[in-house]
């Protein structure tokens, strides 16, 4: 594995930056630039580089879709959220529509926000492309077919003319796909979800989203820590605050930044990536969660430092 690229990082449903939010960013940037002059674009860009992420950028609004660059010619993806659409367009732009490609897609579960991108994934309509869709739910194929049934969608699944194959992954058993060793783990979520651990050439990545941690069973905590053990990167569902996750949003199937830090510390993981952002959160709110999470890691650190990032659409992480 060489690189991770995030195409969709938002939880539950896609969101878009509003006009008032853009205006707020511009006002903040202009106020920060008061008295400065920029004679070149490079000077202006240096100024922008110094702004907080929430002022100069945005975390984005596509739902879950993460690309793993393996170094090989085949594509590997986690989840088929709305971020799959720009990924597919980028793949076609890169190779052209007539150059057959192979895509390996690992699905955590079939809630809408994790599958809604497939009907808009242009390579799926092109004969010659090969698509392997992996998961541990017995109903994976029927759920993907059903979302394109009339009257919910105008184009039936049968119009996807790529060679599509569904592959069932037995949980807790290592499988080989696209040159990666892949293991899934059952997670607590309505209808079940599965976390993925990918390993290759001494590198490991855990993708664990839509996973609630009840925190009342030390053995369960240990089992997650074992799944995360020594991971280079853990992409973690940090949708809610801990207080919300154990109170008003208990049994909603999601986790928190606090639990993410604790599990990664227990596991000796190296890099925690906050993921599946609450759609109601502004860029500033996610910035604040990131700062809080880094502070929590700092004051509770007992071993090696844990790097912490908040995923955004377009973010890349070198492995």
């Amino acid at each position: 594995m060489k690189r991770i690229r995030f195409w969709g990082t938002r939880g539950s449903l896609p969101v878009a930056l509003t006009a008032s939010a853009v205006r707020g960013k511009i006002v903040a940037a202009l106020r920060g630039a008061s008295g400065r002059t920029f004679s070149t674009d490079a000077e202006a860009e240096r100024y922008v580089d110094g702004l907080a992420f929430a002022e100069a950028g945005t975390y984005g609004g596509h739902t879950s879709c993460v690309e793993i660059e393996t170094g090989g010619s085949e594509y590997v993806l986690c989840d088929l959220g709305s971020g799959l659409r720009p990924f597919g367009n980028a793949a076609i732009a890169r190779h052209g529509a007539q150059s057959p490609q192979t895509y390996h897609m690992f699905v955590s579960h079939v809630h809408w926000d994790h599958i809604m991108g497939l009907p808009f994934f242009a390579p799926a309509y092109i004969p010659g492309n090969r698509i392997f869709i992996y998961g541990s739910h017995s109903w994976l194929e029927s759920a993907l077919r059903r979302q394109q049934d009339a009257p919910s969608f105008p184009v039936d699944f049968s119009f996807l003319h790529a060679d599509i194959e569904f592959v069932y992954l037995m949980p807790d058993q290592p499988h080989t796909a696209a040159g990666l060793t892949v293991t899934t783990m059952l997670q607590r979520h309505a209808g079940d979800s599965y976390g993925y651990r990918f390993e290759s050439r001494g590198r490991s990545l855990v993708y664990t989203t839509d996973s609630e941690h009840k925190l009342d069973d030390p053995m369960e905590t240990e089992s997650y820590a074992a799944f995360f053990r020594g991971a280079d990167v853990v992409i973690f569902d940090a949708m809610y605050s801990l207080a919300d996750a154990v109170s008003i949003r208990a049994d909603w199937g999601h986790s928190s930044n606090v639990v993410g830090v604790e599990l990664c510390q227990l596991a000796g993981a190296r890099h925690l990536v906050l993921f599946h952002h609450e759609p109601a959160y502004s860029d500033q709110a996610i910035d604040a969660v990131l700062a809080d999470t880094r502070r929590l890691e700092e004051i509770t650190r007992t071993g090696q430092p844990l790097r912490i990032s908040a995923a955004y659409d377009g973010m890349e992480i070198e492995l």
Partner: protein
Amino acid sequence: METSSRQFADVIVAVPVGRVDHHSAAALEAALAPLIKTACAGKGVLALDFAGIDYISSAGLRILMVAAKELRGAGAKIAVANLRPVVAEIFAISRFDRVLGVFPTVRAAIEQFSPSALAAFDAAQPTATR
């Protein structure tokens, strides 16, 4: 970890000491269970003196949330006081400071809820500290 307790009128002050992580959280839960039962029966207050807690994990915080639900459901109350700086930050980052009553001192917590307990608490303090 160990937990001691004292009662002042309708307020029980529990004093856990140690580190509350995902292993030791069960000990805190067991220690609080009878105190919660007593507080619920009397519709009183359970005040947790956290001066001796140097760390609390999500598992420990969950126990406080479960306790709060049980107490509030029975018409009783919960308060947390004397947080060490690190624990206070954990409360803030987890947003538990927004859902539990957090007080700078045990006395401030008791003062909030019960005049009779405050009088008993003050009477029990050494003269020099009154």
